[in-house]
């Protein structure tokens, strides 16, 4: 069975047709519990997310700030395995029909087996993968497997990426391009600066792929600000924080996710 790369493309195109940016939410699998993660992702989509990224928790999340590190630690203590992550992707897609991506560090994929990971993710109905510590130069083995199984390869670009590298990266990617709004790790920020707008403009000049912006976006007004110049707004830590703040109260946690997704969805619709 081929992955849902095309579904991802059509959802992003649909948002564009509506004259708005898409809303992409992130949560790690295994958090708050292995089975509860699917409910959480469903709540995010019911609340207004168009796309969900499922994090594969890692023992050494070098690119994540304290909020996602905490969630990853909880997920790993819950005993989450790669097979659970793939099952979570599959169930979230089956329940909602939304495109679901996997986001993870490279070592778990390398260890699981690149071909096997791509095949299992596609079989479950996944739409693609974001591998932030796999630079384009090392990515050929993954891209071959992803292409064969109908999965998107979403590369991250950063404000420090020079123009010639942007062209090389976007030429190798598919689905969309993940533009990091700032130089730093994941986490909520007071403001999302002009760096992000400049990076989106530079990225657009190299590709026709949609460009979605992540890192630091946590509320409706930031989402609106970013949606004014990007094709999608990616929110992670703010969702994780809602669940952490609920301190194990499942209903309150899900309500918090729906509420935040609703506010952000409103934000991406009021931008222009």
């Amino acid at each position: 069975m081929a992955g849902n790369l095309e579904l991802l493309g059509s959802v992003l195109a649909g948002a564009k047709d509506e004259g708005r940016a898409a809303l992409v939410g992130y949560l790690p699998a295994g958090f708050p519990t292995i089975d509860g993660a699917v409910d959480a992702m469903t709540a995010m989509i019911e609340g207004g997310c168009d796309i969900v990224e499922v994090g594969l928790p890692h023992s050494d999340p070098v690119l994540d700030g304290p909020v996602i590190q905490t969630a990853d630690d909880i997920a790993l203590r819950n005993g989450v395995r790669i097979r659970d992550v793939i099952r979570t992707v599959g169930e979230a897609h089956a329940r909602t029909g939304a495109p679901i991506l996997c986001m993870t560090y490279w070592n778990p994929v390398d260890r699981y087996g690149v071909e096997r990971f791509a095949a299992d993710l596609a079989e479950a109905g996944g739409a693609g993968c974001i591998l932030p510590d796999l630079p384009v130069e090392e990515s050929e083995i993954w891209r071959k497997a992803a292409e064969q199984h109908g999965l998107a390869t979403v590369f991250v670009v950063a404000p420090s990426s020079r123009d010639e590298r942007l062209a090389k990266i976007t030429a190798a990617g598919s689905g969309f391009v993940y533009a990091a709004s700032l130089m730093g790790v994941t986490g909520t920020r007071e403001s999302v600066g002009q760096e992000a707008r400049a990076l989106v403009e530079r990225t657009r000049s190299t590709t026709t792929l949609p460009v979605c912006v992540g890192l630091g976006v946590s509320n409706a007004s930031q989402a609106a600000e970013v949606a004014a110049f990007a094709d999608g707004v990616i929110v992670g830590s703010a969702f994780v924080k809602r669940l952490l703040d609920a301190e194990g109260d499942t209903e309150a946690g899900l309500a918090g996710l729906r509420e935040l997704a609703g506010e952000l969805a409103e934000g991406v619709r009021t931008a222009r």
Partner: protein
Amino acid sequence: MSSDFFIPDPEGQVPSAEGYFGAFGGKFIPEALVAAVDEVAAEYEKAKADPAFAAELEDLLVNYTGRPSALTEVPRFAEHAGGARVFLKREDLNHTGSHKINNVLGQALLTRRMGKSRVIAETGAGQHGVATATACALFGLECTIYMGEIDTQRQALNVARMRMLGAEVIAVKSGSRTLKDAINEAFRDWVANVDRTHYLFGTVAGPHPFPALVRDFHRVIGVEARRQILERTGRLPDAVAACVGGGSNAIGLFHAFLPDESVRIVGFEPAGHGVATGEHAATLSQGEPGILHGSRSYVLQDEDGQITEPYSISAGLDYPGVGPEHAYLKDVGRAEYRAVTDDEAMRALRLLSETEGIIPAIESAHALAGALDLGRELGSDGLVLVNLSGRGDKDMDTAATYFGLYDQRSDEGAK
């Protein structure tokens, strides 16, 4: 005649352009760090071609560090090594007390060439942190050192030394709270502050070019030792030995001997409580290939690619990865890697102290324990060269507790 001090990768012993030693190495880093890592590589290539860089580094190594370091024969210690002759390369006598200063001074010069004003570093036992804080004081650079919380406790003396030198020391409370987590936190800092910050990486791991760059700055150890032992004994050693955590002192000693086919090259990893207990950090003996901290090498990990928590009595060896060139040397069979337990290392530490008046670091004591075995295997004609990578002052609290050296009465008096 060229100097001993800075002879980067002669005879083509270099990684590929992509930073690979065989199947190991590479550059697995986030896009946000690519420009900075490429800048380090480019600046290093320029420095290698600049005679002024080599001259300035040599001046520092001679007049600040005190190189060349001595080569000391240890006959009373060697009586316990099957009668073989044992020589120690005395990196413990360098300024700051370990080999780490060799690499730090080289990278501090690179930092200045790149126009950066701030340096960050990770440290396990604190030796790299102390050396980095020292160089930052010397060069007038702002300095932040990341150290696992457990290590700040067991190496409290080095924390105080770093602060005395003007560095900020941040105790890292995530994960296993040891060296691996200190590196994670340093990478997080670097991503956010890369414009003005150089990450002064302390071992021969990490993304390309660090494994080659750090090695080149430590090659002086083996280059000197090879010349010294030829002068003293008229022949090459039968075996060279060093402890391996990340592997910087080991590669520094080994590299000059790689072309000498008659010389056995042996690295000693920490077996902790014994590899069978699972409480160890014997990455090359027990790990499997994977990616950690920017390169492919052997890694201690589970079947899902999660890094497993290492253990060693030695904070400097308590790391679940290892430099990619060691992984390559293991796989091609040029070097062998064995594991030494906490207890074996501590016995060797005490033996060297009592027979030769030299208190080694617990890290280096792993190599000494290994050398005792190598000597017995080689017999009375054998000649073993050991890298004494650091001195043991920092470990006195751990050692005194281990051997019960504290005065019971004064303990009680303090209560």
